[in-house]
């Protein structure tokens, strides 16, 4: 544990004292230490992004292809054939508007799940707060999000959709989306580090979650009596919120969103504490 020498805050070169002992307690999260390692955090994100685009032939296009093609498939099967309602927006726009945050979420949690295992060499050879790994895995998906989001803007332009003042909610929704991905990601990371078969379950979880969220259909399709339960899914709030903020259709975020935000913050906090608790064991297992 890094305890403060009073001089520490003045300069890193001034001696600081490090105490090493078995960690105790459930809630020793060491926020300050996370902050001290912010440069490493930044470098790991930078590495993830750089490597991802170096290894592929078409680079950044990947960020667009996946949500875009999914949108095309959804438009044909759900929009055209199944005639699923789209709350008055063109179905492709309706679906894509949901696929942008959804793809970010899905990739983030998948990426975070594997982050500890993929970096096991690093973990065995050098100390840094291990929590940086899942967090940077989630944040390194951000450029992809921005790119696919820019396509969304082009589509809105194409369909002649003018955003309303609701747009001001967007930063909040993006933050909510990232927090959700982080909360789920941290739990899955911890599980996967302890139980190595978790990662095989994650694609299934994502698929299941996709259909439990209003990506291909509006949540108005869900029977009224299940709506509260359905609304607890934080991705429901994110997606509905995106549609409302950008397309101006549907209902504004409601109390339910606040509830799921509370739930997510709680899940995130306990997830972080749990991760910290297991951190020592994770290093020894790896």
């Amino acid at each position, binding site marked *: 544990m890094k*305890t403060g*020498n009073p001089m520490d805050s003045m300069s*890193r*070169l001034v*001696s*600081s*004292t*490090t*105490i*090493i*002992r*078995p*960690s105790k307690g459930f809630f020793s999260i060491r926020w300050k230490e996370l902050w001290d390692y912010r*440069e*490493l955090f930044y*470098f790991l994100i*930078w*590495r993830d992004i*750089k*490597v991802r685009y*170096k*290894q592929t032939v078409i680079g950044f296009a990947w960020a667009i292809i996946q949500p875009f093609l999914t949108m095309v498939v959804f438009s044909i099967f759900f929009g055209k054939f199944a005639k699923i309602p789209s709350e008055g927006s063109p179905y492709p726009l309706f679906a894509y508007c949901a696929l942008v945050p959804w793809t970010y979420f899905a990739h983030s949690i998948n990426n975070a799940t594997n982050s500890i295992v993929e970096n096991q*060499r*690093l*973990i*065995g*050879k*050098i*100390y*840094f707060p291990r929590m940086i790994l899942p967090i940077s895995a989630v944040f390194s998906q951000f450029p992809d999000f921005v790119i696919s989001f820019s396509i969304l803007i082009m589509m809105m332009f194409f369909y002649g959709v003018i955003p309303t003042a609701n747009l001001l909610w967007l930063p909040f929704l993006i933050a909510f989306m990232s927090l959700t991905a982080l909360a789920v990601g941290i739990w899955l990371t911890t*599980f996967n*580090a*302890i*139980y*190595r*078969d*978790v990662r095989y*379950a994650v694609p299934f979880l994502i698929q299941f979650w996709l259909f439990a969220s209003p990506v291909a259909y509006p949540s108005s399709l869900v029977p009224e009596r299940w709506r509260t339960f359905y609304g607890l899914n934080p991705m429901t709030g994110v997606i509905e919120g995106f549609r409302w903020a950008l397309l101006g259709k549907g209902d504004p975020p409601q109390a339910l969103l606040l509830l799921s935000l509370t739930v997510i913050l709680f899940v995130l906090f306990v997830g972080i504490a749990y991760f910290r608790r297991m951190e*020592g*064991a994770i*290093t*020894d*297992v*790896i």
Partner: protein
Amino acid sequence: MNRTMSNISIRVENLSKRYRIGQREPYKALRDTLTHALHLPFQVLKKENDRAGSHEKYIWALKEVYFEVEHGEVVGVIGRNGAGKTTLLKVLSRITEPTEGYAEITGRVGSLLEVGTGFHPELTGRENVYLNGAILGMRKAEIDKKFDEIVDFSEVEKFIDTPVKFYSSGMQTRLAFAVAAHLEPEILLVDEVLAVGDAAFQKKCLGKMSDVAREGRTVLFVSHNMGAVRTLCTKGCLIENGKILLQGKVDEVVSLYLRKCQDLTSAISLAKRTDRRGNGSLRFTSVKLLSRDGEEIAAQSGKDLVIAIDYVTDSQSEKHAEVSLAFTDLYGQRLFTCLSRSSHQGGFLRLPGKGQIRCIIPRLPLLPGRYNVSRLWCKIGAQMADDIQDAFHIEVAAGDFFGTGKLNPEDGGNVVIDHGWEIL
């Protein structure tokens, strides 16, 4: 923390680290845990039992370790493989948490358990310098400032913008070490990192490290290279079975270690080794180092060495066998191989059902140091009968190889070859 310990850099008290057998805990599958959950009531009972007999399932890689390192001391940590040296470094660099005990480190710590940690083959040399620097705890501004110096040191400036996957392994090592060498913590924890790279570069690194030592920085240096330990370190610390056996002047500690090694070489049992392959029609049981007269000795440079290997076979009949001993240095670099097929007159060794094979090396051409018989095997006919990796170590003491009354310098490589000079 401002007690009268301003002069102490590292203080370790009662430090212990427990691992499950097999050094590392095996990871679990969720599947197994779910199955176990069904037996939960029984599990609880079993846990109680486990606790009682926990010494059977766990090993203590470190057990109640106490020591202190003063500011500016360069301490060589030595001991056999698996003695706990690396675990100690891992605990001090916080890679792994201690199970019990306490350590206090005053000053900014840098640890170097490997060079090139986090190097990514897809990234260029330049990018890797920044990434690796950040991983080792350098600030970006610090790397910016030292970048040219790092590239200079690494001797790869021409390829600095090429992805490192196109580098030779030597180039990668040089670049990696260049970054590490420019780390400027107050306390440096170094594991066997000099094990890599060519001799010239190793020398350069040793040079850099002794600069570090002279600058008054505290260094904890784990190594098998007794030469390096003696040159670089002022203090030594010998670890055996997770305990500190001796801490003191480097020469005393090194010589105790060498004596211990020789004790160990006097008869090495191979009978209980389970990590062996082969069909078992012959089994090596033990190894002794003998002189020509059959007395047990410690290997010495330039003295005849007889490696006597006892064996048993599965029948009384005579076997046509072929035996091989491969010698490497401690870094796994192959030095030479004693292969009976090519060196024994008449090809096959004709072995009775039970006995001793003796491999005789006249005027042992190895410089003082520790060597590994990285593979010892025996074939009967074409069948592999016994095959042991890392069979045993040989500690070679200094000796007068040429009979000139002079010793070879220890930094002259691993091997001495007989040679002469003529002036015309």
